[in-house]
């Protein structure tokens, strides 16, 4: 194993403090970075050694808590998974996540996403009632695999930062919230699809999506929200045909 390489990086950070600034501005910091570092390490270096006033969110440093989403050279990234060695230039631009209001520096407002997530009923609505004393619901590995991918969402909201539809139409429920509805719809234990359908198959739901696919490209957990949304569109379309052309098929 070789020795650790170090490189001086100019970190251009978008700063905004509502108490002292009327608009965001860039500030550049020169940071001695180890090649194995991530952008978050560089921010922590700034916080500890150069400028304690810089604000950003972070916790786990292992891409699972979803706190540190930001734009790194214009790309939505988790700062803890944006590796310095991938940025060959000596300069990295760091900005708060696109499409969200800036609260302060790299901290954006999360409330819109949380409200939307809650609106899709992202919890199990059991098909059948079963007391805990009766034991677990059976679910085969195949049934688990059917929705497993969609459970991996860490709510980092990078998909919203990448989604041009969300940028243009803020009412859009967005990739992560709708994917979470899909996760429960696909769960063999769940019987709540009809209850969720009203919200997710609406104009602000899947039909606002034009399948740009950016959400899936930036998702750090390979959830593929774009796929989930298209699958809901297909299923909703089938619903419509069944209802209007084959009314006898309706339950």
């Amino acid at each position, binding site marked *: 194993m070789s020795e650790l390489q170090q490189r001086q990086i100019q970190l251009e950070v978008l700063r905004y403090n*509502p*108490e002292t600034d009327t608009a965001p501005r860039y500030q550049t910091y020169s940071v001695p970075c180890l090649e194995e570092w991530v952008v978050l390490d560089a921010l922590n270096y700034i916080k500890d050694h150069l400028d304690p006033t810089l604000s950003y969110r972070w916790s786990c440093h292992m891409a699972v808590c979803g706190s540190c989403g930001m734009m790194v050279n214009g790309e939505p990234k988790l700062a803890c998974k944006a590796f310095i060695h991938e940025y060959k230039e000596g300069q990295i631009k760091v900005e708060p996540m696109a499409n969200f209001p*800036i*609260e302060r520096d790299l901290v954006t*407002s999360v409330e819109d996403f949380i409200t939307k997530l809650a609106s899709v009923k992202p919890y199990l609505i059991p098909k059948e009632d079963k007391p805990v004393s009766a034991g677990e619901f059976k679910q085969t590995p*195949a049934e688990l695999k*059917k929705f497993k991918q969609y459970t991996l969402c860490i709510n980092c909201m990078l998909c919203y930062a990448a989604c041009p539809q969300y*940028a*243009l139409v803020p009412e859009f429920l967005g990739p992560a919230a709708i994917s979470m509805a899909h996760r429960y719809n696909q769960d063999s234990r769940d019987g709540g699809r009809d209850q969720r359908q009203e919200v997710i198959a609406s104009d602000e739901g899947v039909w606002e999506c034009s*399948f740009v696919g950016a959400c899936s490209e930036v998702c750090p957990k390979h959830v593929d929200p774009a796929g989930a949304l298209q699958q809901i569109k297909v299923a909703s379309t089938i619903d419509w045909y069944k209802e209007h052309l084959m009314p006898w098929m309706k339950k």
Partner: protein
Amino acid sequence: MNSKPYVREVSKTTWFLSHPRYKRYMAREVTCIFIFAYTFLLIAALGALANGQEAFDAFVLGLGGPLGVLFNVVVLIATVYHSLSWFVVTPQAMPIQMGEEFVAGHIIVNAHYGAWAVVSLIILFWGM
């Protein structure tokens, strides 16, 4: 309340220039205009047919001219691009689970290419 969130405006007209993936998306969307335009050509062909043999021959002759050929080539390229861009994303929209595993995406995409080739051949030979 000290909080005063700053909202960055997004241009309604030039947003797609900000990232290559948005340009790719626009290319996919824009190419459907050519398909749309081609339907007008078909309607014009029908109109010519309705006006008798002479009119239709003139129409077909016109198609063979440089402008007609150019238009067809451009539409063909756009249509192929448009179709292929959809082939690529079909595994996302229509995943197929067999047993526990999902069918690999490239198999679904290749199946589309296969189907496309078969349909093209049928049309070609049927036309001859």
